[in-house]
């Protein structure tokens, strides 16, 4: 069983990359471990319809001691099935420094040989230079990567892209660097070029307390799209990431917000109700911020789950 880890900050394009991988490898037996922050895996909804096996691990980073055991068991579980590739999508703030140690234990538990191909880190060229100095996990993701995909280059100038390349090389001179938009890299090439070299082991910085605060909001009534966008504009700077689905009078949309980049894409499947995961960059204050801004635009009752 070949194992590939996908890392990258919130909104960098991990899920898009994973979707591309799944398309390219549709003739292979695929397993996915999805590690989400919120209590409900919104990412899970996006790709569940396709033909592969998936285990979702919520409530923390798979590298944190809190759920590391579940992560190891999940990998071991996949070795019992006929799987060629197991893709692991980590949380945005994952610090994979202890992956080596996790693999050691997993190999002892598993019935089949595990071939770790390495880690692919996706970075958002628009925000990377601002983010990585503030968030140590992002440097760790690059340090422990075997390939880095600089994504969204259509939104960034060449000068900045070059700066990003320099920063990446400072952190890890052995990693392959790819540049792309919409994660449209040649995924098969990336995978075949992956060569895992032991980057060593250190303690992860992921603990339950380094998890950013996330909340889930749900709304039953249909809401006006235009006002929903205003609402998003007003709260987006207090968040790392906003993701989910909204049911508006103009139809259902998939919501994806990174920084002040707000994207609403028409969604053709049914949803039960509007459900959005908000990952806060201002801690618990996000509850009050969301409540205040919501009440400005809507009469419909908002339900917040911490």
């Amino acid at each position, binding site marked *: 069983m070949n194992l590939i880890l996908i890392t990258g900050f919130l909104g960098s394009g991990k899920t898009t990359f994973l979707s591309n991988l799944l398309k390219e490898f549709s003739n292979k037996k695929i397993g996915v471990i999805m590690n989400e922050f919120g209590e409900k895996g919104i990412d899970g909804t996006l790709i569940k319809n396709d033909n592969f096996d998936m285990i979702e691990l919520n409530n923390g980073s798979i590298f944190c001691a*809190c759920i590391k055991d579940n992560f190891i068991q999940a990998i071991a579980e996949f070795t019992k099935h006929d799987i060629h590739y197991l893709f692991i999508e980590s949380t945005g703030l994952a610090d994979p420094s202890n992956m080596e140690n996790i693999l050691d234990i997993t190999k002892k538990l598993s019935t089949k040989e595990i071939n770790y191909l390495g880690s692919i880190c996706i970075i958002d060229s628009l925000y990377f230079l601002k983010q990585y100095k503030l968030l140590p996990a992002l440097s760790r993701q690059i340090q422990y990567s075997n390939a880095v995909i600089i994504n969204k280059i259509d939104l960034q100038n060449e000068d900045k892209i070059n700066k990003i390349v320099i920063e990446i090389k400072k952190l890890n001179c052995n990693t392959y660097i790819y540049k792309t938009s919409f994660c449209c890299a040649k995924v098969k090439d990336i995978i075949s070029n992956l060569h895992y070299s032991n980057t060593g082991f250190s303690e992860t910085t992921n603990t*339950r*307390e380094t998890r950013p605060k996330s909340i889930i909001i749900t709304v039953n009534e249909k809401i006006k799209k235009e006002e929903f966008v205003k609402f998003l504009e007003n709260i987006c700077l207090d968040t790392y990431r906003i993701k989910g689905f909204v049911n508006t009078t103009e139809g259902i949309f998939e919501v994806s917000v990174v920084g002040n980049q707000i994207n609403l894409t028409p969604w053709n499947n049914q949803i039960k109700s509007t459900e959005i995961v908000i990952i806060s960059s201002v*801690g*618990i*204050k996000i*509850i009050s911020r969301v409540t205040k801004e919501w009440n400005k635009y809507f009469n419909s009752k*908002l339900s*917040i789950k911490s």
Partner: protein
Amino acid sequence: MGKELILKTLRHEKTERVPWIPFAGVHAGKLKGYTAEEVLKDGDKLYESLLEVNKLYTPDGMPIIFDLQIEAEIMGCQLLWAKDNPPSVMSHPLQGEKKIPCKCKIPTAQSGRIPMILDVMKRIKAQIGNETALYGLICGPFTLASHLRGSEIFMDMIMDEQYVKDLVSYCAEVCCKMTDYYVDAGMDVIAVVDPLVSQVSPDHFESMLSESFTAVFDYIRNKRAFSSFFVCGNATVQMDVMCKTNPDSISIDENVDIKKAKEITDKYNITIGGNIPLTTTMLYGNQQDNMKYVVDLIDNMDNHNLIIAPGCDMPYDIPIENTIAVAQAVRQTNEVREMVKNYEAFDDIDIEVELPDYENLSNPLVEVFTLDAKTCAACTYMLNSALVAADHYGDKIEVVEYKYTVKEDIARTKKMGVKNLPSIYINGKLKWASIIPSRKELFEEIDKVI
């Protein structure tokens, strides 16, 4: 109907009369002959006792359980149980270790005593929930933070504001989870009980605590429940900053002048509840004392946005007839007003106490005047800070506690002219009223007189 009266009051509507809530926590057990420990641990005994509270005291609203140690116990604090008091916290998992706990320590619906409490909540809801507003009490984020960290938190407030902010915000997440469990079990009102708030300055409240409190009240409102901010001790100066966190109501004890406090809460259109004195009136007074206090409360204030309640958790041994008298005064105010028209309020306790000769002490004397460090969290931390000094200085100083639950100590407290509880006096001079000193501040004062 009582419940509607409470809900109307919390919606800030006009009501035909003032509603009333007895905070019968451990006292509920007394009604059925159960100890505090029994009623806080055994669901059947708690259920039975609550029905008795409902029957005898005809409340408009009532709490299910009054124990600020439920969350702390789950999160690793050791408790000392008592027969006639709620348990007190004996150990602090973060003492000597300045950390934020793992989020996996946040109580779940299956942790500790929570399953028992949720079960009782659901049963009480089914039995009397249509007529009586039910209060789910959660430990406020600041008091919970101090349960976890111990009295070092007061030093942290000076040395490391960010840590306090982070720890309190973590505890606010615990509050949100507790709110989920209690609202889902049928609670109409979530009371965030944070006695320690009275022990810090409004500046500290605003810089380190208010964001978390505001988030919790917003969270409760989004859950379609009403909120209340319970505080004990002299929170007079905090009233304004407490209002700014936007709860639906605030509850205070006798240490705050309710008339003045109501002027502030009225400005924010927040309901205020309180403040029948727990010991002097409810525990040691007679029926007329209680009736008179309540009639005066009702007569001296605008009744809009007002709830009549004891100052805090009722002492176990409050005579049942006194609480009945309170209920009577609320429900038949006109008749009761006539009854107590010529009644002279309960006078000072007739016990002679001798004050020490403060000018000629052989060793510095640290006197801690409390409501009772076993039951009042603020008092526990005040006393603990003095005990730290006792440990440090050994027999070079003397530390004593005087409790307002002991008649002789009440007499002493009055003779000393103590205005706020808890307070610390050194050599007969008031040093800290309500505000808990950090280790450094306390040691500096002691060093001056040693």
